C-alpha cells in the first residue's frame, strides 16, 4: 500500500475489494448455502434477505474463503451459519468491534456485519457509531424489524412511541432512533435503506454498497411476522407504497407518489419539505446528490419520514462519499514504519534501548 494514501484523503483510492482475491471459477448462489437447517420462523423477512445475499455474492467473483460474516445476537445474527463462507456468531452488540479487528488486520478479506436494531442500536450502539466514524472497511446489514424477536417481543430502540409490547403493556415511552439519521450523524460515508421484500432494490443497494471504500451501512426494513407483523406494510402494499415511499436516485430530482405528483423542495428556512409538484413547480425540486461532502441534506432527507405512519420514507442511497478507510490508513502506517526501518526491525536493539551497561 502506498504512502500517498494516508496523505490524500478525498482522492479516489482503493475500492473496498481491491485486495480481496478473486476466483475464475463460476459461482452460483448454491455454493454460498450451507447444509444447516435455517431456523427462522416461517415467513420471516430474514429468508428473503439471505436469498438475496446468496444470489448477489457470485456477481463479485470473490474467493469464498476470503469472505467473512460476523454477527452479534438476535434473530438476524444467525445469518453467518447459513453462509458457506467464514463466519463468527459473536455476542450481543459487539460484531462491529470484532469485525473491526479482523478487517484492519486482514485487508484481503471482505468483511460483513449482520446485525439487528436491538443488537446495533441498543446494546451495541457505541460500536456501531464508532465503526461508522472511523470508516472501517465493513459492509453492515442492519435488519430493522422494530422489535426484539429472539427474546420474544419487547419493544426496540426503533419501535414507534406508544408501542404495546410484553415489556410495555401501557405503551413504550421513548422516542425511536432513525438508523439512517444516526449513521449520517456519525458521518458515515455510505448510508442506504432498502426493504426485505423488494428483491430488486435490495440487490441494487448491495451492489452499490459492496465496493464502497470504508463502512457501508444498509438499513433493511425486515418484517417480523411473529412479533411485529406488517410493520412496513405501508411501504409494501400496492395501494399505499407509491404514496409513502421516496425512491432516492443520485442525480435525479426527488419525486414520488402516484404519477410523481409529489416532490421534495427546500423551504425558506433551509429545511426540506414534501410538496405538491404541480403547485411548487418542477424546477424547485431538490436533485439528490449522494456524493455531497456535507451530510446535512442527506440528514434532512432522513428526517422526512414519519416514524408512526412511515409516510415520506426515503429508500435508496442517502450518502456515498469517498474517504480513505481506517483500514487503509492503519495498514499504511505499519507499512511506512517498516519501510523507514529498511526492513530491519532488530529485537535485540529494541529491548536494549539506549542506556545499557556491562557487568563482567
Amino acid at each position, binding site marked *: 500500500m502506498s504512502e500517498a494514501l494516508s496523505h490524500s484523503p478525498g482522492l479516489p483510492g482503493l475500492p473496498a475489494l481491491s485486495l480481496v*482475491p478473486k476466483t475464475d471459477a463460476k459461482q452460483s448462489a448454491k455454493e454460498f448455502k*450451507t447444509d*444447516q437447517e435455517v431456523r427462522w420462523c416461517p415467513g420471516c423477512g430474514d429468508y428473503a434477505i439471505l436469498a438475496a445475499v446468496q444470489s448477489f455474492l457470485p456477481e463479485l467473483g470473490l*474467493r*469464498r*474463503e*476470503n*469472505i*467473512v460474516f*460476523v454477527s452479534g*445476537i438476535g434473530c438476524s445474527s444467525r445469518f*453467518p*451459519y447459513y*453462509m*458457506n*463462507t*467464514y*463466519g*463468527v*456468531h*459473536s*455476542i450481543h452488540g*459487539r460484531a462491529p*468491534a*470484532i*469485525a*473491526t*479487528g*479482523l*478487517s*484492519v*488486520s*486482514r485487508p*484481503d*478479506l471482505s468483511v460483513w456485519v449482520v446485525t439487528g436494531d436491538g443488537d446495533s442500536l441498543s446494546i451495541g450502539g*457505541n*460500536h456501531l457509531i*464508532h465503526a461508522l466514524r472511523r470508516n472501517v472497511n465493513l459492509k453492515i446489514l442492519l435488519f430493522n424489524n422494530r422489535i426484539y424477536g429472539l427474546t420474544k417481543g419487547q419493544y426496540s430502540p426503533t419501535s414507534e412511541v406508544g408501542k404495546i409490547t410484553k415489556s410495555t403493556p401501557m405503551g413504550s415511552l421513548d422516542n425511536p432512533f432513525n438508523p439512517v439519521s444516526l449513521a449520517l450523524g456519525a458521518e458515515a460515508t455510505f448510508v442506504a435503506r432498502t426493504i426485505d421484500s423488494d428483491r430488486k432494490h435490495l440487490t441494487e443497494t448491495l451492489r452499490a454498497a459492496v465496493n464502497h471504500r470504508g463502512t457501508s451501512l444498509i438499513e433493511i426494513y425486515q418484517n417480523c411476522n411473529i412479533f411485529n407483523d406488517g410493520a412496513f406494510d405501508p411501504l409494501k402494499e400496492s395501494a399505499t407504497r407509491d404514496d409513502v415511499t421516496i425512491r432516492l436516485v443520485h442525480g435525479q430530482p426527488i419525486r414520488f407518489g402516484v404519477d410523481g405528483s409529489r416532490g421534495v423542495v427546500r423551504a425558506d428556512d433551509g429545511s426540506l419539505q414534501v410538496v405538491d409538484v404541480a403547485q411548487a413547480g418542477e424546477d424547485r425540486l431538490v436533485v439528490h446528490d449522494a456524493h455531497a461532502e456535507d451530510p446535512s441534506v442527506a440528514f434532512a432527507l432522513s428526517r422526512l419520514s414519519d416514524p408512526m405512519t412511515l409516510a415520506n420514507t426515503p429508500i435508496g442511497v442517502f450518502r456515498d462519499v469517498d474517504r480513505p478507510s481506517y483500514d487503509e490508513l*492503519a495498514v499504511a*502506517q*505499519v507499512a*511506512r*514504519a*517498516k519501510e*523507514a*526501518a529498511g526492513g530491519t*526491525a532488530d*529485537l*535485540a536493539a*529494541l*529491548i*536494549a*534501548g539506549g*542506556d*545499557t*551497561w*556491562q*557487568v*563482567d
Partner: protein
Amino acid sequence: MQRRVAPLLPPAYEGAVVGRPGNDPASDRSRSARQHVSKQVVQLDRVIIRFAGDSGDGMQLTGDRFTSSTAMFGNDLSTLPDFPAEIRAPAGTLPGVSAFQLHFADHDIMTPGDAPNVLVAMNPAALKVNLTDLPRGADVIVNTDEFTPRALTKAGFASNPIEDGTLESYAVHAIPLTSMTVEALKVFDMGKKDAERAKNMFALGLLSWLYHRPTDGTISYLRTKFAKSPTILAANLAAFEAGWSFGETTEDFAVQYEVKPAHLPQGKYRNISGNLALSYGLVAAGQLTGLPVFLGSYPITPASDILHELSKHKKFGVTTFQAEDEIAGVGAALGAAYGGALGVTTTSGPGLALKSETIGLAVALELPLVVIDVQRGGPSTGLPTKTEQSDLLQAMFGRNGEAPVPIVAPRSPSDCFHAALEAARIATTYRTPVLLLSDGYLANGSEPWRLPEVAELPDLTVAFATEANQTMPDGSQQFWPYLRDPQTLARPWAVPGTPGLEHRIGGLEKADGTGEISYDPTNHDHMVRLRQAKITGITVPDLEVEDPDAAARVLVLGWGSTYGPIGAACRRVRADGGSIAQAHLRHLNPFPANTEAVLRSYERVLIPEMNLGQLALLVRGRYLIDAVGYNQVRGLPFKAEELAGVIKDVISNV
C-alpha cells in the same frame, strides 16, 4: 536558620565505611573534570531516597533521572513511584503529594526499601505525609522557601516543623531550593515562575553530588528533551549544575556518600519498568510466534503506557487500535486473532470487568488471546494509581458459565517481559485466552535487567490449519473446527483465506468435533469438561522452592509482585538465624503439578497477599491445606521488615 548536619554516621545507614574521595574506581565515574572540595566520603552498602513534592513539582522525573544515573553507575536498584490519580491535585495539599522512592545498593536487592534514609521534601505537605515513614537519624532535605505560614496551615502544621523541634531526631538540611534556583537562573531571560520550575533539577543536582552519581545521562536527557527550547534547556542545565555546586561548596553537607556498583551476574544490563518490559515482551512474542501483533485497547491507569509504547513499534508489524471502549478493545483483538494475528488487549481491573463477556466468547471460540490486567486498588474506580492484587479471583472466575482461563503473573518489573512470552506461548499453543496479571507496583517500578540473548528466547512458531482433518464414511474430506490435538486438546486455528476450511463458529454451544450448534445435554456436559481439561492440562514449569538450610518448617507462598518483599523478608529472617522456605507462583491457573507436594512438605504455609486472601482461598479450595493469610490492601507493596515479623510469628507458633 540552617542547621548543620553532624558529620557522624546517621544510624539509618547500615554497613557504612568511611573513606576518602577519589581512591576508588567509582568516583572517577562521577565528574572527572570537577575540582573537589575535600569532603569526607562515606561508603554505604545501600541507600533509600524518597523524593516528595507537589504533583506539579516534577518528582517523578527527578526520581527517574536519579534512577537512570544509578543504573548506569552499576548499582542494583528498585523503585516505587507513588503519585495521586489527579494530574494536578490542588497545590500544597496532602493528597496532592507525589513521591518517588529509590533503593540502590552495592549488592542485589529485592524491594524499593521500607523506610527512606533520605527524604527530599519540596513543601510542607510532602514533609507531613512522609515523616511517619522516616527512621530516626534520617536526612531530611527541606525546601524552606515553601514553608510559608499559608503552606504550613494547608499541610496541617500549627507551627514551622523546621523550627519547633518536630525534626529534632533527624539530620535536617534546610535549604531555600526555590530561591537558590531563581538566583542561579537570573542570567536567563525568563520569568520567575519559569525559573522556579527548574527547582527539581537543582534538587537532582544536589542529590547527584551527594551520592556521587554520574551526570552525563541527565545532561544528555535534558538536551534531547528540550532540544527545541534552548532557553529552557540552558536553565535546566544551569539549575542542575547549581545544585551540584551547592553540595560541593556548602558546609551544610560535610560528607558525601558512595555506594559502589553491585556484583551482579555477568551480562549486559539496562534499567526497565514493568510496563516497558511487558510491551517489549509483546513485541518479542510477535517476532517469536511469527504473527503480527494486534493490540486493541482503551486508555486506563496504570495500563495505558503499554498502549503508548506498542504504538511506537509498528515497524515490528505491531498494529495498535485505540478502541471506543474496553469491550471494543478486546473485541477487536479477538477479531484480529480470528484472522490469525496475536490478539492482545491491555487494561486494569474495571476494564477487565467490562471485557469479561468477550473473554468468555474467546473461551468458547477457542482462539488465542492475551489479556493483560495491570491491577490497581479496587473495587470500582478504587485507587487508580495504587497497587493491589485483588483481581485474581476476577481473572479466575469473572465470567458467566464454566469458562476457565489460564493465568500468568510476573514477579518483578523485568519479569514482565518473560511473562508476556509465556502468556503468548500458552495462548497460541492451547488456543485460549490467557490472563496476565501485572500490577501498579510492577508497572511503574523499575529494576536493572540483564538482557536476554534474542537467540535464546523460546521458539513460539505457530502453524495454522491448511487442510481438511476428517474423512467421512463416504470417503469425502471435511474440516471439523473442533477436532482436537490429542496432546494439547487445542482445536485447529483455521484462518479466513484458507480454501476449503470455511466454517462458522460462535458463542453457542458446539458439538464436539464438528463445531456445529448443539443443545444436546450430554454434549454440553462433555464440552464443559473438555474445555476445563484443556486448561488443567496446560504444561507449566514446576514450582521451585528456596529453602537454603533445608530445615524450614514454614513455607511462604506468594504470587505476582510480592516476590521482592517476601524474598527480602525471608533474607532478614535467615540473617537472624531463622529457617524459612519461599515459593512463588508464576502460574495461577493451572497451578504447577508439584504444588500440592511442595505445600504438604511444610508444617505451615503462609500466604501474604495485597488482597483479602484470594490465593489462600484457591489453595484451600484446591488442596484442603489450611494456609495462613497475611493481607494488606493499602495500595502499597509490603515492607520487608513487616513481613519478616509476620514470618517470625508464624515460625514461633508452629
